[in-house]
């Protein structure tokens, strides 16, 4: 949605610059605006579905993370295989008080990632997982 609005602003600014064809660009920009905002709303809807489909579960020996709407993925990362945990918060996320927790194993393909956690929950999860990972660590 944000991307769509930014794009719209850029197009409008470009249209304003070519002022000598005002009679043409006004309806064209209006049509483009409708399309872009429509696409933004649809993307928003999909984003909402995707967010609702993201879930995680801490079990005794592993962490389950489920995500995806079209392609559903369920990742199982045993605590004994966890190498390190990342908590990342970009500027956008920080302004809402959120963070992303990411687990890493020795395999590059492991993709257990939980975005949009409240910072407290993220910190708690990180510490809890680090503790459990240490306790159950296995060799490579």
């Amino acid at each position, binding site marked *: 949605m944000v991307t769509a609005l930014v794009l719209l602003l850029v197009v409008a600014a470009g249209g304003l610059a070519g002022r000598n064809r005002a009679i043409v660009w006004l309806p064209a920009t209006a049509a483009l605006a409708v399309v872009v905002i429509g696409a933004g709303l649809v993307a928003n809807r999909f984003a909402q579905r995707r967010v609702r489909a993201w879930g995680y579960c801490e079990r005794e020996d592993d962490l389950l993370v489920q995500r995806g709407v*079209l*392609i559903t993925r*369920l990742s199982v*990362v045993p605590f004994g295989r966890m190498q390190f945990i990342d908590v990342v918060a970009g500027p956008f996320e920080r302004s809402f008080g959120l963070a992303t927790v990411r687990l890493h*194993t020795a395999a590059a393909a492991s993709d257990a990632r939980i975005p949009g956690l409240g910072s407290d929950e993220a910190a708690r999860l990180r510490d809890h997982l680090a503790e459990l990972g240490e306790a159950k660590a296995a060799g*490579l």
Partner: protein
Amino acid sequence: MTALEASGWQRIHPLSPLVRAGAVLLGVIAIFAGSLFKSDHGSGEIEGRLVFGGLIAIWGLVSWLVTRWCVEGGDLRIETGLIRRSSLRIPLSQVQAIDIVRPVLARIFGLSELRLRTGGASESSGRLAYLTAKHAEVTRVQLLALSLNHPSNQSRAQPPSNQGLLVRIGVGQLIASIAVSWLMIVIALLIVALVVTAFIAPGAAISIIGSSGAFTLGLLSAVWHRLNGSFRLTVMEGRDGFQLHSGLLDTTAETIPHGRIQAVRMVQPLLWRPFGWCKLQVDLAGSQRKGGENRAEAKQLRSVLPVGSREDADRLLRRILPDAPIELIPAPLRVRFKSPLRYHNLAWGRSATVVVTTTGRLARVTSWVPLGKVQSLRLVQGPIQRRLRLATIALDTAGRNLALSVRDRDVGEADRVLLELIDSCRDARLNQRRVYPGAS
């Protein structure tokens, strides 16, 4: 304090910079020497070239002087560099295997290189290049002894030793296997096309040859690497693991500890079906690049059987993975709608500690992974799979190159199998820790 630790700082062989610079330096020297004798330049030119040669020699001398190594406090320390000093410290307890590599130039001078392989996935290499061949072997034995004596490795249980020759690749078979491959077919087609063009339009042919130098060099080097990498390959099983000796001009003696093998793959290419040949490759954790290999080749798996019959492959597999499953369950019929070309090859099976999957469109690719090496599991279901009530289970390992997935199984079966595999992986991990306590 062993003799190695007591001897303090040591130097590598003085000819090492020459060997390291390798063929490039020799080429430059040859060009210089050739042009020196060919035409009569002014005396200033000759002096200029001599000064240049002198500078190179001084650079080699300095690079030799500043490099030194020693064993200190259970670590191997290697220091190099004049302006930017680099000090490498490798804890001997982490060392799993030490390989001896001898490029052709080193063999001419009677030198060899030691490469230390540690358990991590990093590319920083512990390389002692070059020592005299005898010294290298002695040092290797001493370093291995030190690494095993370390307290954290004391309780490492020795797997049953079987000092036996497992596989030896004959020269004829290797050459035949390279000849009957897609690479060779491409080269043959190119040569035929070139010859035809030469008859029709000689000028065009010459210009093509001239401009495609890099391409042909790439093709030739690919063929050369296949030949050299597996020439007279012998695989033996010893106490430390599998020992592979190979090489035509550049020889390598490599040891692969049992614990380092993350996955095994057998490929039966379409072209080899009439001969009944297959190749067996292993995926290792933390593979290091060989000197002179570019990135693309480093991504390839280590070939323990570049070409062989099914019996050879089965025999080797039984030593690598004693618990390999025998029965395979084929994919459900409805997978034909989703993957018509792959359907006849899709199957999987499991034993208590190993999972096997087969896949592949033209070639049949069989992959084994020991459950103790699985890092994480993923259950993936795309939209077409959802319509057909299928799902895929992916098993991730620490090796870089093999992606193992149990493709396109029935949803109920996939869910049940996922839970079973989680428990089996946990048990396999705990058992592994008991057998190889400090191991990778």
